[in-house]
């Protein structure tokens, strides 16, 4: 009896993990009109062209089905013998052309508006990385990375999936409502594409080039999107989350961020202990490194080497710093010197040298990192 009930329980649990989605899924069939002027314009164009296509389809398929039903040989229908009619052929060339011209006019107007990135109130630089986004507030001198916050256990079906599965981040992009926000998009590695459907903004982030896009959000709220250009194995796992807040709240938040950035700069001067660095390093490692080198440091060779007891993390400290700070060209290992602060670099290097049984007992301080980088 007990065995049976245990088994029944387990089956319920398995079923819960396997079909967690059904309760929350929906049957959305159409585009969302979104929350900006641009997204509403696009929605209007979308519905117009869809309407035109449906109307033409009804006429053409109507004639076709009439023939299919009425002009069957089994009903004794005798074939006509016509095979040309210049007037008809000219008409069905000119009419579609006129419809297309009528369609092109509003499309052109919308496109011109979308390309007008002048007179922006806020400038935000968006940089794509494999596989996360970096946001830098150009005029405010602070910035941060925005990482997927869905736990691996949910992705690998060991845990029920949350409401915003794969569309949630640790730190969303914050923008003020009612202001024109300009995005300057680029990439650090491969091509990514930054998309938020409800804003009607999608633009490729291309390494070595800067693209522009803009938005003005009318309603406060949280808007979610994803990377839409194949960028490697983590392509599905780099969402975009934008939080639009009222102007005052935005200003308060900006002030806090500036202060926090200042505090972070001062932390470099502090004397750190091994334990403090290990603690900080673990969180840096899990957000930045674990996607490739795995949370337990085992990697997935040959593309992503193991960090368990291997020469780089147990041997020469300078060589280890060189790889983390400058990356390895021609491979997926990026130059993290540009992405992480001195404190984060020191913490993650120290963590790698002491975690998973590496236990070298060696540490590197933020100050040493700063000296190394200024060499």
């Amino acid at each position, binding site marked *: 009896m007990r065995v049976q009930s245990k088994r029944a329980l387990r089956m319920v649990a398995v079923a819960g993990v396997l079909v*967690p*989605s*059904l309760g*929350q899924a*929906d*049957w*959305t069939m159409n*585009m969302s009109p979104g929350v900006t002027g641009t997204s509403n*314009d*696009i929605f209007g*164009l*979308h519905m117009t*062209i869809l309407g035109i296509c449906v109307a033409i*389809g009804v006429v*053409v398929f109507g*004639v*076709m089905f009439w*023939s299919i039903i009425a*002009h069957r*040989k*089994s009903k004794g229908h005798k*074939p*006509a013998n*016509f*095979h040309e*009619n210049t007037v008809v*052929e000219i008409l069905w*060339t000119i009419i*579609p052309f006129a419809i*297309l011209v009528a*369609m092109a006019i509003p*499309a*052109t107007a919308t*496109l011109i508006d*979308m*390309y007008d990135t002048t007179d922006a109130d806020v400038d935000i630089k968006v940089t794509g990385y494999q596989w996360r986004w970096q946001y830098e507030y150009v005029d405010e001198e602070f910035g941060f990375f925005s990482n997927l916050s869905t736990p691996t256990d949910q992705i*690998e*079906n060991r845990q029920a*999936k949350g*409401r915003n599965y*794969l*569309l949630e981040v640790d730190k969303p992009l914050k923008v003020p409502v009612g202001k024109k926000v300009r995005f300057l998009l680029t990439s650090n590695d*491969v091509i990514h*594409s930054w998309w938020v459907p409800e804003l009607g903004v*999608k633009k*490729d982030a*291309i390494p*070595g*080039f800067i*693209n*522009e896009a803009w938005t003005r959000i009318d309603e406060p709220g949280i808007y979610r999107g994803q990377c*839409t*250009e*194949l960028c*490697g*194995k983590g*392509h*599905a796992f780099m969402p975009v989350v934008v939080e639009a807040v009222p102007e005052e709240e935005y200003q308060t938040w900006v002030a806090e961020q500036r202060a926090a950035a200042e505090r972070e700069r001062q932390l470099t001067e502090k004397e750190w202990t091994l334990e403090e660095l290990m603690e900080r390093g673990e969180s840096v490692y899990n957000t930045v490194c674990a996607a490739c080198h795995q949370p337990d440091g085992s990697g997935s060779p040959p*593309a992503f080497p193991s960090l368990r007891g291997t020469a780089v993390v147990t041997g020469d400290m300078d060589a280890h710093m060189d790889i983390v700070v400058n990356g390895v060209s021609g491979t*997926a290992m990026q130059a993290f010197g540009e992405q992480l602060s001195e404190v984060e670099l020191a913490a993650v290097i120290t963590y790698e040298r002491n975690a998973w049984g590496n236990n070298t007992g060696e540490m590197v301080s933020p100050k040493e990192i700063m000296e190394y980088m200024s060499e």
Partner: protein
Amino acid sequence: MSAVADTHSQEHHHGPASGITRWLFTTNHKDIGTMYLIFSFAMFLLGGSMAMVIRAELFQPGLQIVQPEFFNQMTTMHGLIMVFGAVMPAFVGLANWMLPLMIGAPDMALPRMNNWSFWLLPCAFLILVSTLFMQGGAPNFGWTFYAPLSTTYGPPSTTFFIFAIHIMGISSIMGAINVIATILNLRAPGMTLMKMPLFVWTWLITAFLLIAVMPVLAGVVTMMLMDIHFGTSFFDASGGGDPVLFQHVFWFFGHPEVYIMILPAFGAISHIVSAFSRKPLFGYASMVYAVGAIALLSFVVWAHHMFTVGVPLTGQLFFMYATMLIAVPTGVKVFNWVTTMFRGSLTFETPMLFAVAFIILFTIGGFSGLMLAIAPADFQYHDTYFVVAHFHYVLVPGAIFGIFAAAYFWLPKWTGHMYDETLGKTHFWLSFVGMNLAFFPMHFLGLAGMPRRIPDYALQFADFNMVSSIGAFMFGATQILFLFIVVKCVRGGEKAPAKPWEGAEGLEWTVPSPAPYHTFATPPEVK
């Protein structure tokens, strides 16, 4: 008298050789056509089984069956194998079998090259498929292989992929040269250009497209090879190159390529619709001009694949207008087919079922194509499942249904037997339902915001993905039935007369079924 005896003894010595050498050394257009068709179907099953892996993983949210690395290899290989291994060789196979029969020629103009261009293909695909077993895995950057994901960040097997593409390209170019040489030189007396069957016309234009763009593809993969191994920076901004240059060159090949995969189907469908309507094709001349116009326009629309890369406003407008313009000649073709059916005397054998489905579903793919042409709206559609739905609607019920329609139409001529009509219709209806169930919901997924090429997705996309996977499994399994039908038809069945279809027209129906090993040794007279 002696001349007659001579001819007889020659024919006697020119039957097919026996054993494997018949196939290795053959220069006979019918043998080579058969090999192309068998090869293409094998690739169709291989590429299709990869699609099954993709749909199985997408059956539910979360990672269940494969890891993202392998998922990306599957999407890449599925695309490459279907485009270069299944669809293109199938049309070359049809061309080999039918072009000489349709224009009254004894064989293709360049038979030895014909043999060589076929046998290059298995070599190319052996290289391509072998990358799955290499360290670091197969190409994983999508069939469009955008740099720098495919150069700096590509797996070691990318080099093998490049050589495979080179070999396929050589094969395609030789095939195209052969088609042009045959059509322009070997037509029966009296068959002027404007009397050519439409399948011949569409293939002639397709062959010119192939010769124009395959070298561009070879160029772009060679630039990749240089970037990877020889230190150049064509596509690397840090060395003065430009990743977007890759996309311009690739799509200059890629857009004509999509018409390469559909124009011959246009031709075949024109014959089939006319035959089963028992009525001449409406607007023959306008059909020819429309195909020509589509082919020319296909060279000036490539950047509509790149509306989000930051093309300047004027460029964006040019490519939007040019793309919308393609709807006009394409519309003319659809109107002509429908008018051909109008007031005909219709029957619905399997080829006609596939042809009617082709017209309806290809038109739906054309409609979504017109929507994608509207540049501002494309910012929302681009790289979502809406695009996946679009191009599967033009390729599956377009190219592939066109090939099925053509195969059923000409099978009696090839084998000398009628195929099993009940099984053929079953194959059609299962394919039709499965295909729509698989691909129609993808429109909704794309509009709701699901990006393409992802192995895992947010929960609101779960329901339609499950429906789509069920449809895909149904469509995939059904194709085994086609294999069974063809094998059954080759081995026996009701004997086919020279002209098994009441309304069919053309020289191919004047020779017996099965078509003898050598046909039209003496050219027929066309009036």
